């Protein structure tokens, strides 16, 4: 196993809210190896976006880390000074956001922003940065980049903006690119194009990519490995083929059963997982999925599930899974 470039170790994080705290991430463990594409899947509210934000140290002011570490090349970034952490952003770890419509400042040109976004690139003149941005726009498939640099974001289509956002993220050749729902705001054709582009760029630049999405099709298309999250925990981690062909955690099985793309028979209604997400202000003592799980036994409700290692790259957080 190669050394991880970015690893999340036993990270627990909570949001302070009036009258208590929401435990959004609970003992999350995840390693991203150089050059791999890791997918983080899960339904809305499972903590996947918070995890992505934590990796680049962008959690809001009300977020509080209660334990754990985020290591970039072995060094805990949360122990660095605020300035040192800021210098890593964009240069070592870059991010592409969900909504390309609002990701850019409306009052500055794309070019001005792409130059600004190379703030942490030392030893480059403004002209160098402009050239680099121009080249990167061409690389992500924007025709006439010189012209595009002088345009404002609202003059771009959604797809073009997401291309520009990806170009921005790659400007400083980061070791890790985090994409939070990069295709959710786009239509299907655009989604396919962006996925294709990400795969191409990954091959060219060899950076590790973390894709956060609730769209299982995107993960199947793009990822090497998948981490499935539920209620703030990684419940199953596996190579993508293994996960799709042989899901082991009951939640993963239920999730895949609900994917419209995998349903073969016409039934007139979409399957869904019964029940609701647990209230993370008071996380349950046992397995968070137990109340919705068909295989749950008495101990699932009372004892925290163990992490069962299923193979060199596989594990599941469940009482009922046998190695």
């Amino acid at each position: 196993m190669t050394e991880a470039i970015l690893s999340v170790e036993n990270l627990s994080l909570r949001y302070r809210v009036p009258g208590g705290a929401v435990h959004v991430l609970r003992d999350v463990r995840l390693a991203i190896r150089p050059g791999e594409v890791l997918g983080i899947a899960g339904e809305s509210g499972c903590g996947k976006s918070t995890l992505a934000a934590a990796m680049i140290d962008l959690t809001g002011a009300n977020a509080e880390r209660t334990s754990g570490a985020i290591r970039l090349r072995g060094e805990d970034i949360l122990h660095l000074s605020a300035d040192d952490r800021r210098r890593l952003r964009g240069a070592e770890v870059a991010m592409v956001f969900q909504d390309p419509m609002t990701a850019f400042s409306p009052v500055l040109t794309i070019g001005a922003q792409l130059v600004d976004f190379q703030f942490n690139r030392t030893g480059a003149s403004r002209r160098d940065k402009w050239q680099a941005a121009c080249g990167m726009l061409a690389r992500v498939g924007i025709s006439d980049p010189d012209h595009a640099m002088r345009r404002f974001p609202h003059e771009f289509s959604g797809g073009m903006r997401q291309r520009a956002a990806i170009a921005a993220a790659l400007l400083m050749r980061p070791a890790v690119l985090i994409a939070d729902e990069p295709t959710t705001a786009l239509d299907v054709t655009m989604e396919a194009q962006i996925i294709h582009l990400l795969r191409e760029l990954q091959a060219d630049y060899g950076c590790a990519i973390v894709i956060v999405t609730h769209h299982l099709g995107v993960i199947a298309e793009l990822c090497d490995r998948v981490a499935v999250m539920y209620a703030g925990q990684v419940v199953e981690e596996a190579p993508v083929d293994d996960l799709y062909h042989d899901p082991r955690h009951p939640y993963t099985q239920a999730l895949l059963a609900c994917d419209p793309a995998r349903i073969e028979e016409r039934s007139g209604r979409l399957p869904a997982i019964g029940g609701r997400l647990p209230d993370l202000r008071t996380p349950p003592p046992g397995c968070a999925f137990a109340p919705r799980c068909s295989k749950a036994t008495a101990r699932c409700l009372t004892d925290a599930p163990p992490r069962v290692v299923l193979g060199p790259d596989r594990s599941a957080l469940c009482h009922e899974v046998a190695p």
Partner: protein
Amino acid sequence: MLRYAIKRIALAVVILVTVMLAMYAMVFLVPGDPASLALGPRATPELKALLRERMGLDEPILWQVWHFFRSALTGDLGYDVWSKRPVLDQILEFFPNTLILGVAALGWALALGIALGAAAVVWRDTWADRLLGVVSVGLISVPAFVVAIYAILIFAVWLRWLPAIGAGTPGDPASQIRALILPAFALGVGWVGYLARLVRASLLEVMGENHIRTARAFGLPETRVVLRYGLRVAIIPTIALLAVGLGSILSSAVFVETVFGRPGIGTLITGAVQKRNYPVVMGTVLFMTAFYLFIVTAADLLIARLDPRVRDAFRR
């Protein structure tokens, strides 16, 4: 942009005409005959009739209105029988004083207000932010003429640093600037607090937007994020307000001009109203309305320049 500009200017002209008609209606509804007031209780009817004729008050009302509009268009605002000078001459003599006062007051208030507002956001939710909040609200609540009186008392009477009254010696810029400091201070104080609150609220809203998160995600320093990415967007509503602000500052300048005995439009209007000197009142109001509309329209056009989204919305 051109179509937008034409639309805005056309609207300004319509407003101007409406204001003038309303003014005229008011002058004829308010009791008091200017001629008898001017000549005193012992004037003969013949004398009054002569003065009315000279002021053009013997003509039919609609004819007077038409006459006024026609001359106003050619830049003639009428003749003041009291001072025996054209009205426009008087306005042009006094207006620069008021404008300089208004611009100076708004200028320092704007600079300090934006700085305090941005500082409150950089230090948000700390004791500094709360202190700035209390100070701002305190400044808003103090009337300009109260500040004026205390400013005179402290800086002119006790400390003798600055002159208490007047606009300085004409032709001596140093004395004019010294005479400007206290009135501009008194007039701007309330606006500092107001602008600081406005900029803070507007900036806080912008700081929650996604593009701010993007700028942070690329490791831009927080001050740069606030000033370049936040303030650029947050300043837009402030500029719109500023134009309205200049209008209201010019009207509250009346008090400050009175307290400081400073010649200006405020003193001109109050004097004219007391004497029922209609040509001067009408001319001054028309001039001030036109100026105000000019500023507001210019601000709208400036916003269209600053915000490319507004600019393009009108291009189509």
